[in-house]
């Protein structure tokens, strides 16, 4: 197993290198010149040239990439063209917001997804099942940004129950411990802040969770249906074990493998969905920031973010595979790889 993990991590490196090259090429070769954006309305041609020279944009492409790589390996991802602040700082300032959103979303999606999926499987073809599956179908068909807008119209505009944007009321910001407001406010015992942070995160997290929840629901149902048909389930029932235990202890536990795989794979779509959700809700996360930087041709930031995201994504896939291996004794990651 260990060998497998190490091998996979080693294989990560060329993939990540490749990712960084792809993004580098897209941004530097194809994207519009950042100089006019950075230097502003009054920039003269001279100033533009001078700036390009100073930032190495006139060097041959492979040299530019080499300098970039040098820096990246030492943790220096460059400086944002737009704010002249280190890229790492800009990313770190906004990352906790996205992580908090994604974590709450995945918890919501998993919890409700598995719940509805299990019940739908158990009560197959009932009204609940049909309604649940229909809801799931709508969930994967609805554009995430539209769902967000609908939630805002209803819960914010009509009912006035919840705020429509932002992460917290600035007057209620908790003392920074982790950067996650929900955690920080609980840790410092500030219940007003916790309530406010919760109010702000509910709508965007729900919008973000919808798509994943739908997928998890469908997968749970089909996995449960498969498992419930197995012989050992029949045996358990014949033994007289209470139905609830049968479902959870036996069926769900064994059916969990594909569900976990799906949950792990949702991370990719969550990151993508975060971009849109953050835009709709003005959530100060890395998704909306990256889009803004792509549009401003702020190369260093975009490269930094994509590299970071790709790394996380690839690591998460690895994690899922490893968990998969642990859960299913039938899978052996031995020398002969599947």
């Amino acid at each position, binding site marked *: 197993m260990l060998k497998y993990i190490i091998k996979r991590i080693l294989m990560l490196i060329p993939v990540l290198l490749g990712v960084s090259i792809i*993004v580098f090429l897209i941004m530097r070769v194809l994207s519009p010149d950042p100089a006019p954006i950075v230097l502003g309305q009054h920039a003269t041609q001279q100033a533009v040239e001078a700036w390009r020279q100073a930032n190495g944009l006139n060097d041959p492409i492979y040299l530019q990439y080499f300098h970039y790589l040098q820096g990246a390996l030492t943790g220096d991802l460059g400086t944002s063209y737009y704010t002249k602040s280190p890229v790492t700082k800009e990313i770190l300032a906004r990352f906790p917001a996205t992580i908090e959103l994604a974590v709450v979303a995945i918890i919501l999606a998993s919890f409700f997804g598995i719940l509805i999926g299990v019940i739908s499987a158990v009560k197959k073809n009932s009204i609940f099942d049909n309604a649940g599956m229909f809801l799931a179908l709508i969930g*994967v068909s*609805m554009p995430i940004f539209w769902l967000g*807008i609908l939630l805002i119209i209803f819960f914010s505009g009509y009912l006035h129950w919840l705020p429509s944007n932002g992460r917290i009321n600035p007057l209620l910001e908790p003392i920074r411990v982790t950067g996650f407001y929900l955690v920080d406010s609980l840790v410092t015992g500030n219940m007003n802040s916790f309530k406010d942070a919760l109010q702000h995160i509910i709508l965007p997290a729900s919008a973000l969770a919808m798509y994943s929840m739908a997928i998890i629901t469908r997968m749970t149902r089909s996995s449960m249906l498969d498992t419930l048909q197995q012989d050992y389930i029949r045996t358990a029932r014949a033994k007289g074990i209470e139905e609830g235990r049968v479902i959870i202890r036996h069926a769900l536990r064994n059916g969990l493998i594909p569900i976990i795989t799906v949950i792990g794979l949702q991370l990719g779509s969550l990151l*993508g969905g975060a971009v849109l959700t953050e*835009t709709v809700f003005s959530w100060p996360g890395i998704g909306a920031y990256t889009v803004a930087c792509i549009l401003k041709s702020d190369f260093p930031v975009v490269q930094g973010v994509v590299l970071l*995201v790709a790394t996380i994504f690839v690591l998460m896939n690895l994690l899922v595979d490893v968990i998969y291996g642990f859960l299913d004794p039938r899978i052996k990651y031995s020398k002969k790889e599947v």
Partner: protein
Amino acid sequence: MKVKNSSNWSESLVQAAEYVERPESQLKVMWETLRQNKAAVVGLIIIGLLVLIALTVWGSELMGKQILPYDPNYSDMSESFIPPNASHWFGTDQLGRDMFSRILAGTKISLFVGVAAVAISLTVGVILGAIAGYRGGKTDTFIMRLMDMMLAIPSILLAIAFMAALGKGLDKAIIAIGLVSIPEYARIVRGSILSVKENDFVQAAKVIGNRSSRIIYKHILPNVISVIVVRATLGISSAVLDTAALGFLGLGVQPPFAEWGDMLGRARGFIFTAPYTLIFPGIAITITVLAFNLLGDGLRDAIDPKSRIK
């Protein structure tokens, strides 16, 4: 679909002859199963309707005639923000344009981009996957690593980056969305080829002297076609979603054209004052995507041998 490994190649030949399904008959079976799936039929009907709308709008544009209740691009500021009523079924937007006409006009764009993007992904993906699967070895590794790299970046970020690089506009959106999905098709095709390549009856067929194309036609194609059809149908639905997302962010079709995502993006400022400008485009997107999802799901069930036995 288990084939017993046999050392006797003539036995393999017989098995091959019995086993191989012609691609045409497989499709026929798929269709039969599909017809019985009510949900899929609903999806198909909706798609039919959408295609009809799109073609009608496109046709009328080509002929220079106006078939929609209003010109979707005609802006009259004095008519702006009219809530849905008898003359404007979906109301008017911030520039006084009739929303119903704009939504119908948008059908054409969304379907076109969806199909075109999938066509690109499919073509390039299948070719790459075929090369990788057939050649194997270094070519295979290289192509698959490339696909891995593309998959490592969240698709929307990749699409946005492509758009920022290529510029705004409908054609660039198609290319961007198309590029993003290539890895999936490549993987499917490569997987199919690999799984079949090793099988004895294919080896046997080769020994007999069947040309590669025949092998592909009789052995590889049946496996692959149905999976690709399912993937492509679902691919259209995600392409429509991606188009809307790019439009929402302001990167897609440029004004004054009507694209559902763009309509949503521009109407964001009126979320509290004129919510109807945001509701209808979203419904349009959802229905379209839903239809393709229903069809795709139905097709997937139809090709699954388990459901056929049922």
